[in-house]
């Protein structure tokens, strides 16, 4: 395993005194897809939010342990969270485009971080939309309202929006759970394409999806990491009984 782009060491999370996550040490190798699976409420989404510090939005959340980005402790370097979040992008469960045009949505992040010229902006919006597999559908209507797109298109739009700021890691929080099967398939294909350039972390409650697209899979339950391995091995020969029960649908 080459050096991890992102790594957590003994990561823990308490919200208002309640333990949500404890002792999670997990490394994400570059240009790979790691799926995080587990039953509802096991802390998958919370874990993802620890990685880009969106836990900051929860007033009573206390995060412990370390998050290393390229072997560097985020807390120690005192990297501002906005900078962290630019480098570790996130796509949410429900598509959340901004009210406004398709173009403005994709350009949002770039306009924050640099002062791009109009030509640069146009080029990068186009590149991001191509990378997200949406360009052919929206090239003639970039000035249309983003909310007029279908849910599946909206989800690819927010992926394009995340890609446009050139992150190193992309966090995907059940990106297909609100979508129909065809849109889901498109997202999965997209994930497979994107891993050639990014490190992807995919939270999903769909075991088959994890098996289809992920190189590595981590199984979580009750706020703990129970098993982490290459997907091939985890899905064929799980080491723990709980993992086997979950992936074969005998959970609970």
């Amino acid at each position, binding site marked *: 395993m080459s050096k991890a782009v992102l790594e957590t060491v003994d990561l823990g999370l308490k919200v208002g005194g309640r333990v949500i996550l404890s002792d999670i040490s997990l490394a994400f190798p570059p240009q790979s897809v790691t799926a995080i699976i587990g039953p509802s409420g096991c802390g998958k989404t919370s874990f993802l939010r620890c990685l*880009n510090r*969106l836990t900051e*939005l929860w*007033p009573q959340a206390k995060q412990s342990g370390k998050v290393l980005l390229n072997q560097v402790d985020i807390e120690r370097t005192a990297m501002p969270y*906005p*900078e*962290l*979040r*630019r480098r570790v*992008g*996130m796509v*949410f469960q*429900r598509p*959340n*485009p*901004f*009210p*406004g045009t398709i173009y403005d949505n994709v350009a*949002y*992040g770039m306009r*924050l*971080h640099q002062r791009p010229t109009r030509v640069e902006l146009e080029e990068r919006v186009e590149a991001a939309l191509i990378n997200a597999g949406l360009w052919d559908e929206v090239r003639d209507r970039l000035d249309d*309202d983003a*909310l007029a797109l279908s849910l599946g298109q909206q989800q690819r739009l*927010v992926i394009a*929006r*995340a890609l446009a*700021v050139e992150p190193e890691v992309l966090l995907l929080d059940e990106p297909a759970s609100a979508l129909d099967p065809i849109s889901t398939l498109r997202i999965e294909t997209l994930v497979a394409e994107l891993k050639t350039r990014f490190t992807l972390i995919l939270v999903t409650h769909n075991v088959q999806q994890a098996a289809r697209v992920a190189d590595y899979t981590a199984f979580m339950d009750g706020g703990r990491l129970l098993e982490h391995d290459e997907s091939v091995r985890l899905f064929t020969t799980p080491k723990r009984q709980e993992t086997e029960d979950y992936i074969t649908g005998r959970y609970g």
Partner: protein
Amino acid sequence: MLLRALERLAGGALAVLLGAFALILCAIIYQGAAALVPPPVLQVAIDGGEKITGLLLKDSPSQVELLLEIRAAKPVWRRIDRSQILHRSEPADACLLSASDGRLRVQASCRSDEPGWSVSYPNAGGMLGLQRWSKAISDFLLAPVRPDGQGGIGSALVSTFVLVLVMTLLVVPFGIGVALYLAEYAADTKVTRALRLTLANLAAVPPVVFGLFGLGLFVHVFGRQLDQWLYAERLPSPTFATGGLLWASLVLALLTLPVVVVACEQGFRRVPQRLREASLALGATQTETVLRVLLPAARPALLTALILAVARASAEVAPLLLVGAVRYAAQLPISSEAPFVHLERPFMHLGYRVLDLATSSAGGQYALQQAFACALVLLLLVLGLNGAAIAARFRLRARYRDLS
């Protein structure tokens, strides 16, 4: 069953309210319009050969009421029973003589150049009395105000407009700031809860108390201090240490602050959390998120707050009496020379005008009609101000409908 009865009760109450509202509106329009249509000059011949010429103020089945003249602010009336009238006519060359001090005379005919009087011919209406209408309306709006408060309402209209505008400029940025703090930055602590409670209670304070507060603090403390710093050469005659546009605007701003804050905060809270998350996850700071996502998405609510503030502020008279509204102001609070807006000047106000007309002993029915006409104009002003905001909100709503 109980629920059913309650529903009916609520429905009934709503119908009664709507009916009452429609009635009030009709009264204002009917009475107000009556003041705008000038009465014709009527000439009647009565038993005994006497001919009486006067403005027809009331034309009931039993009697007519004529205004013969206004002498030293006292109207001279004549009531005539219908049974006495032998003949009535509206002679085309009957004329109305009015002097700048408010005196009025009605004559059956007159020369065109009476010294000291301006002459008009109410009955010589031309087509549909169009001339008469336009003259009456322009008199009502544009005639110069006289020191007793009578005269055209144009300057009061302009002053009211400027007052509401200055109030808006003061309250909207401050209200949005407070609402932003409460909705986005403040943690839910005892202090913020106390702040909210205070705001809610502020809305329940009687407006005249705000006026008193403004008089005590703004005029007497701030105003005196300002005068000592900036206008020392004019003392002892006060510049800011007397009621004026600025203090009145501030009082109105304080008065409308709770409404604005509550409406804005609601608006900010209704912006879905996922939009904030989307912005933060792209590396935006909280300030950037507020400026680029929250404020635009909350615009319809901000406009609602503006509408509420304007409606509330244009309706207030009582507090203004204490901090600068006057019956007669020689100068408008705006001018064509720098600094254009004169915040220290006392001003006239439409609402005060309504109050003044409706309670004045002179003028009787005529003054009441005038008051209604003022109320009508005030209503139109509020409607105009709000119409613009509502139109803007309507356009924004269409854009943001999919959000919620």
